C-alpha cells in the first residue's frame, strides 16, 4: 500500500499558458475547473481550443465544471518523468460529467485502490507557482486539503 499524494517539488517545470488556455488556469487559481462548450453544437471541448473540434464553430463559451467525474483509464508511474517528480504518482484520464476528458493525477488514496469507473472529484494544489487540478476519490471525504 502506497499513498498517492500531490507533487510538492518547486522544480517541476510547467509550460506557460497560451492566450487560448489562460482562462482555464485562471479558473484553477480561483478553485474552479473551467471548460469550453460550443454555442453551435453544444459539445464540450477540452483541452482549450480555438475552434470546436466537432463542428469548427468559433463560438465557444467558458463554463465551470462541477469537478465530478469517473476514471476512464489509469496507470501508476514508478519511474519519474524528471527526478523532481516524487513516485509513485497516478496519471488518469478523467471522464468529466459534463462530457469531456482530461489528463490529471489521482491523489488521496492508495495505489491499490485505483480502478476504472472510480468516482472522483477535483481538488486543487499549488505546484511550482501554478494551481494544478488533481482528483481524489469521491467516497473519501476526509476533508483533506493538500498543500495548505
Amino acid at each position, binding site marked *: 500500500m502506497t499513498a498517492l499524494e500531490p507533487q510538492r517539488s518547486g522544480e517541476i517545470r*510547467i509550460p506557460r499558458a497560451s492566450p487560448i488556455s489562460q482562462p482555464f488556469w485562471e479558473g484553477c487559481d480561483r478553485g474552479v475547473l473551467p471548460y469550453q462548450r460550443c454555442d453551435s453544437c453544444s459539445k464540450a471541448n477540452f*483541452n482549450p481550443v480555438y475552434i470546436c473540434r466537432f463542428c469548427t464553430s468559433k463560438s465557444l463559451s467558458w463554463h465551470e465544471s462541477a469537478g465530478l467525474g469517473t476514471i476512464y483509464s489509469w496507470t501508476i508511474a514508478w*519511474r519519474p*518523468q524528471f527526478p523532481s517528480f516524487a513516485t509513485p504518482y497516478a496519471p488518469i*484520464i478523467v471522464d468529466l460529467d459534463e462530457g469531456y476528458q*482530461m489528463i490529471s493525477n489521482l491523489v488521496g488514496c492508495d495505489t491499490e485502490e485505483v480502478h*476504472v469507473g472510480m468516482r472522483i472529484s477535483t481538488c486543487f494544489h499549488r505546484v511550482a507557482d501554478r494551481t494544478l487540478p488533481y482528483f481524489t476519490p469521491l467516497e473519501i471525504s476526509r476533508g483533506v486539503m493538500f498543500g495548505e
Partner: protein
Amino acid sequence: MGHPYQNVAIAAGFNTKQARVLEGHTSLSIAIEAALGVMESAGLTPADVDGVFGEFAMDLTYSLGMGPVYASSPGIGGIPAILDAANAIAAGHCKTVLLAGGGAGIYTDRSAVAPWTRVSHEFVLPFGMFTALEFAFIARRHMTMFGTTPEQMAQAAATIRNNGHVNPEAVFYGRGPFTAADILSSRMVADPFHLLDCSMTAEGGCALVLTTADRAADLKLPPVYIHGGGVDHNGPSYQFPPSFDLRGASPDSPPNGYVGRRAAMRSFAMAGVQPSDVDVCELYDPFSFEIIRQVEAFGFCEPGEGGEFVTNGPMGPGGALPLTTDGGLMSFSHGGGTVQLLQRVIRATHQIQGLCQTTQVPNVDLALCSNGGAGALFNDVMILGRTRP
C-alpha cells in the same frame, strides 16, 4: 490501371552499428554513415541520387554533395516518408531516393526519461506524463474491456526480446533468453508495464534507397516491392488524452484504440492479399501491449483475441507467424527520432532479400511492417513483397 507502385522498388536497407551510446557521433553523423552504407550496399553513389526524403533530407543533400534534388519535408519520417518517396518515383519526380535516420547524443540526462518520450505541453507535463504512461492508458482500457492480462503482454515482449537475444547486431544481444515470468519480475515502470515491457533507448543510424523497378534490377541486391501502404494519424502525439475512444468526424473511422485498422485495410486492399497471406510481421513494439493491439487492429484476429494470438496463437512460442525478428525497439535498437520507425521497414526488406543473419524466415514472399501506436495517436502500415506487384 496497374498497381500504383509497379515501377517502384526498395533497392537496399542498411543499419549502422547500434549501441547504447555511440561515442563521438551526432544524429547527423550517424545518419551520414547510414547513407554511405546503404549506397554501398546497393551499388550507388551520391551522383545517382535525385531525391532525398526523411528526417535529414536537407543536411544529407548538402553533406553528400548532391543537388538539386527532389526533396520532402524533413519533418516526415518513417512509413509516410517511404510512401512519399514511392509516390514521387511513381509520379516521375525522381528516379532514386535516399532516406536516412539517425539518433545519437540526444539522451544524456539519464535521471529523466528520454527527451522524445516527454512533450513539454501544459496539459501533459504537469501530470508527469511520458510515453510509457500514455500507452499504459490504452492497455488499461483493453484490459478492462477484454480481460487482457499482464502475462499475455509479457509473452509478446519475451518473444521479441528472444529474437534480439540471438541477434549479434542487437544492442541487447545475449541478454536473454526471456520467459514471460522474467518480464513480469522486472521492476514496474508504468502499471501495467514492467521495465522489460518497454522499449529501450539506444543510438544508431539506418537508411533506405528506393528507385525505379528497372534500375533496381541492375543493382547489387534483390529488389523489394511495395505491395501496400497506409497511414493513420489522429493528431499530435502526447498533447491530448490518448483515449481508446477518441474518434474523428468520418463515420467509418475506427476509434483511436484501433488506429491503424484503416491503414491496414487499405494496405491489404492495395496488395490484393489478406492477413493470412503474410509470412512475417515486423511490428513496431514501443510497449508489449501494442503488439496485442496491432494484431487486432490489422485484422489478424478479432478484437479481444490479441492476447491469445500472441501467447497460444500464431505469434506465440512455436507459432507460424514470426514477430519483429531483429529484436525490435525492445532489444535491437531505439534511437529516437525516426530511426526505429525506418528500421521496421529495413528488417522487412532484409527478410524478403534473405539477408537476416538470425531469425531469417525461409522464402518470405510478403512481410508486413508497422510504425507507431495508439498511445501516440498514429499507426502506419506497409506490406512488402518479393514479386513485382
